[in-house]
């Protein structure tokens, strides 16, 4: 089912949580709402579900305005951040709840309900756990019960609020790949909220980056990662080094060191910010054209890449990620002098505030 969001504004007292959101979600799409806390992503999800009423603007399901429809009539499957399982009901009763509260005419028979529950338990790979209570389940299992419960009512759209937020990192990784495969099987329009950029980029078809109640950029994981619309998006989607620089005569200068970035012709000197990811910096033992000098301040080679902190000649800490192989061949040690080259940096003009 396609979802249209038109000029949604949500105010809590004086605080504007959403400042005019426009977004279209295609049928069968898996969309991530990504942003820091307070960016309005959860509020937007709750507005779509009907758990919050928008101050102004409309939500369309398949072209129909549902803005004034009650939550219980919208037919959305909602998975809460802390699962919100009914603690006094066992797994079977939890999953069956949505079917049992239907009006008598629409309610399936008790055998049909049980059949459906077992089908869903198989889908979320929890067969045999029907008589357990939520307290007897692990975090990952509760998460899947919550998902099965939401799917039981055959929703037209599945909404997940920080679905893996309260799980430990290993379970998170497993579950998000599993969610991706499940989505590929069910092809249900799905929106999930996350503050974890890795999760959004790995799972979603399309990522919507939000900040302070606005959409900063919407695009495929590739687009938002490689073609960030602005400094905020680039900054949010991974570690970055930030340099303040001066543009002069088609060259960029940090302090008084010229650095190797292509700069459009600028008529006069102006200030700009350079953002660069740690793995796009290169360390060498000898001076290169447009490289800057620094002293190794900190080393950590545990992990897939070695992390090096360099104290630059203008006195700032610069983070560099070096592939393990190169790290070994360079044989870097703390306190040594090295030269750093910028391979591919993003330049954003100073007036853009993050």
């Amino acid at each position: 089912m396609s979802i249209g969001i038109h000029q949604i504004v949500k105010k809590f007292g004086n605080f504007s949580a959403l400042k005019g959101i426009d977004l279209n979600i295609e049928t069968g799409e898996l969309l991530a709402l990504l942003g820091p806390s307070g960016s309005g992503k959860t509020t937007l999800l709750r507005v779509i579900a009907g758990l919050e009423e928008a101050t102004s603007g409309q939500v369309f399901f398949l072209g129909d305005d549902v803005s004034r429809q009650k939550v219980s009539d919208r037919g959305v499957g909602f998975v809460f951040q802390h699962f919100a399982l009914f603690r006094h009901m066992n797994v079977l009763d939890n999953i069956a709840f949505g079917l049992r509260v239907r009006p008598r005419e629409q309610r399936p028979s008790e055998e049909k309900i049980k059949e459906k529950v077992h089908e869903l338990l198989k889908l979320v790979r929890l067969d045999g756990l029907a008589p357990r209570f939520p307290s007897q389940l692990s975090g990952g299992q509760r998460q899947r019960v919550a998902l099965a419960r939401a799917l039981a009512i055959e929703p037209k759209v599945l909404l997940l609020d920080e679905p893996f937020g309260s799980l430990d990192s290993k379970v998170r990784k497993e579950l998000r790949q599993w969610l991706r495969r499940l989505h590929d099987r069910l092809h249900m329009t799905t929106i999930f909220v996350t503050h974890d950029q890795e999760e959004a980029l790995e799972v979603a078809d399309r990522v919507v980056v939000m900040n302070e109640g606005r959409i900063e950029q919407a695009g495929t994981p590739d687009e938002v990662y490689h073609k960030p619309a602005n400094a905020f998006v680039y900054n949010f989607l991974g570690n970055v080094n930030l340099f303040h620089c001066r543009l002069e005569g088609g060259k960029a200068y940090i302090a008084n060191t010229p650095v190797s970035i292509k700069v459009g012709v600028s008529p006069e000197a102006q200030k700009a910010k350079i953002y660069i990811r740690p793995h796009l910096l290169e360390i060498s033992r000898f001076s290169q054209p447009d490289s800057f000098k620094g002293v190794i301040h900190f080393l950590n080679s545990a992990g897939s890449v070695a992390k090096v902190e360099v104290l630059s000649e203008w006195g700032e800490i610069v983070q560099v990620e070096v592939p393990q192989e190169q790290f070994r061949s360079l044989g870097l040690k703390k306190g040594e002098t090295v030269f750093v080259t910028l391979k591919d940096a993003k330049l954003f003009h100073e007036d853009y505030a993050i």
Partner: protein
Amino acid sequence: MSGIVGGKLGVVGREVRRPFLSEPRWVRMLLTTVALVFLASFLALPIAMVLAQALKKGFAFYLHALSEPDALSAIRLTLIVAGVTVPLNLLFGVAASWAITKFDFTGKKFLITLIDLPFSVSPVISGLIFVLLFGAQGRLGEWLGDHNIRIIFSVPGIILATVFVTFPFIARELIPLMQAQGNEEEYAAVTLGANGWQTFWKVTLPNIKWGLLYGVILCNARAMGEFGAVSVVSGHIRGLTNTIPLHVEILYNEYNFTAAFAVASILMLLAFVTLALKHWVEWRAAKDAASSEPGAETP
């Protein structure tokens, strides 16, 4: 951890001696003695006195004191008052705590303060408020008199005063409980298609049942034992507007001590029943909480 081991070995409750954490022996003895003497003199002694006085003239007299018409009428009236008050306050308590914990509205803080009001006002004043409101002096009293409706010095007044004095009990018990539980389960129920009524019966009520029962027990105990407010509005008409506590007072003032204590022993019995029920509810609630909290494996 040690609880599991201890439980298996059957030595639950035996304290492990940790001399470095413990006070000197004489300090422990002194504190224990003080606590026991206090309990004995302020609880056990009065209880024993009540029973001794009540049975002073023999068991037959005791039964007679309880079964004479005025006593029976007082017992009946007390039961009626509690029977009306508790359900009313049950409804009010659930509605008020539902409103306070599930909705946002202006004046919420004010409502919470209002609920606490009977706790901070002397019961005698509470009774006086109703006398002034519905008594013969007031405008309302005149109108009521013209229409032959009696509130003060009759059963409706007693019920009104009791409702007023006891309404915080259930709400006060439920509000913190429902605040701690949050609204997420209710939201989940609503997204699954449940209406408000279904959400209340199937989700909210099972989660608050022990707190609710606890509040009902406390409310009932107070409704049956209330003296001050009821005393002001009752008018002390024997056989008509006397509740058990008022009847005890009348007998006492007539120097009929044995009968007074006999009737008082009913209230004492009520106290014991309340205490036992309260204990049982706490135990059940703790058991339920233990089985519905994450990490229930550890005792």
